[in-house]
């Protein structure tokens, strides 16, 4: 019996190695197949992703807190060091803002009077929900962040996400208790924008770097360094006038925009609930016919 067992044992080892190699090849093939399937933005991939994120969100929420606490502490120390200069800067800014406040009040009154004269339709109301950043893209493949707020909190796919500084991106996936935001800097981000002063329309594109590119600007030679870029509101996804950034350079005829938001310091964000009348009407299912 022993020699037979030994022979089987001797045979089993190379067979096991062969099976392992075969499994490895199959799994490498499966990884490639999965990538190709996901490229087609299959609904099942999105469903699995949101379900996994809903399960992982509480864990990420807990383990991200020490890192964020450390970041906040570092930020606070930096602020204490720069407190005198910052105070001076804020004093000057306050004076400037007071001047702007009086102008804004006058324009608001004027605007209301003109709207009443024209019987203009009021702008749709914007409400928001807040969320904390609990997950990062973790690598250079994509520029996304995960939030601890989902559909149960009122987050909807496509909503604009902002901080006090400006636009961050939009919701691309929303689970029950978590959501994923595609940042403006992602390669797949496209936002309809307008140059604030001249009102020229353009599309703002991300390219996985820290700067954004303006494309489809007409006329291209009218863009100047320092021009502020805001959302145009075209397409109805984002409210008009959300600040995004400033033109920082023009290279080979392409305007580069530096975003106002510091993406490496994102902590709390606001998800806008923008009820654009046209889109709301399309999304609302038609009432069932009475039986």
């Amino acid at each position, binding site marked *: 019996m022993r020699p037979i067992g030994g022979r089987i044992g001797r045979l089993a080892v190379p067979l096991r190695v062969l099976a392992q190699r075969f499994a490895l090849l199959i799994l490498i093939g499966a990884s490639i197949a999965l*990538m190709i399937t996901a490229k087609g933005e299959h609904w099942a991939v999105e469903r699995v992703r949101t379900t996994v994120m809903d399960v992982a969100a509480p864990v990420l929420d807990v383990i991200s807190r020490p890192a964020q606490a450390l970041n906040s502490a570092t930020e606070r120390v930096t602020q204490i060091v720069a407190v005198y200069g910052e105070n001076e800067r804020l004093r000057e800014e306050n004076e400037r803002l007071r001047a702007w406040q009086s102008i804004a009040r006058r324009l608001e009154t004027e605007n209301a009077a003109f709207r009443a004269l024209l019987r203009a339709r009021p702008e749709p109301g914007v409400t928001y929900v807040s969320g904390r950043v609990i997950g990062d893209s973790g690598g250079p493949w994509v520029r996304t962040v995960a939030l601890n707020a989902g559909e149960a909190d009122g987050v909807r796919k496509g909503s604009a996400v902002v901080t006090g500084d400006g636009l961050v991106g939009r919701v691309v996936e929303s689970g029950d208790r978590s959501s994923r935001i595609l940042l403006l800097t992602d390669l797949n981000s496209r936002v309809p924008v307008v140059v604030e002063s001249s009102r020229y329309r353009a599309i703002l594109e991300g390219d996985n770097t820290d700067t954004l590119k303006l494309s489809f600007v007409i006329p291209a030679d009218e863009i100047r360094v320092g021009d502020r870029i805001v959302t145009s509101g075209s397409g109805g996804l984002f409210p008009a006038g959300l600040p995004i950034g400033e033109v920082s350079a023009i290279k080979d005829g392409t305007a580069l925009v530096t975003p106002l938001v510091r993406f490496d310091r994102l902590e709390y964000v606001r998800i806008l609930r923008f009820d654009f009348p046209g889109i709301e009407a399309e999304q609302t299912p038609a009432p069932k016919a009475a039986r």
Partner: protein
Amino acid sequence: MNPTLARANAILRILVPFGTLLLAVALSGIPYGIPFLGPVTPFFALIAIFYWSIHRPEQVPAVVIFGIGVLQDLITGGPPGSIALLLLLVHALAVSQQRILLGQSYLVEWAGFALVAVGAAVVGWLLACVYNTALILPWHFLVQALLTVALYPAATTVLTPAARWSRAAEPA
């Protein structure tokens, strides 16, 4: 020791590599806000896969690596399959070089990991370019690789005792 407790203890020890892989995925998915590095975070799963593939390859079967890679893809928002593919390639490479690296000094193992990490960054960058049909700048991939290589000694100070504890579960 109570036989049930002893059994539970043995199972726990066997699950140690899997546990460290799960921890690595979770740690790779949280925001660190490292100044000047933008969204780049260390690739902890790469360290764990390389380490276990060298020291305990039988405890990290390919199917587990595939699952861990897909999990990281789903949590970090990357294309599902991309991290899984990289981890499987690193595992295959590490296992093939196991006899050369095992028993060498720690510096040789670290240098071996550095080569694998940079290689994985290059493959990852090429994959990202093909996947997006665009020329993406490679710097973030290389910075991530260098950051991961720099953290290898810190990570192995946790993995080495974990491997020792896990090994104690094996019958003599």
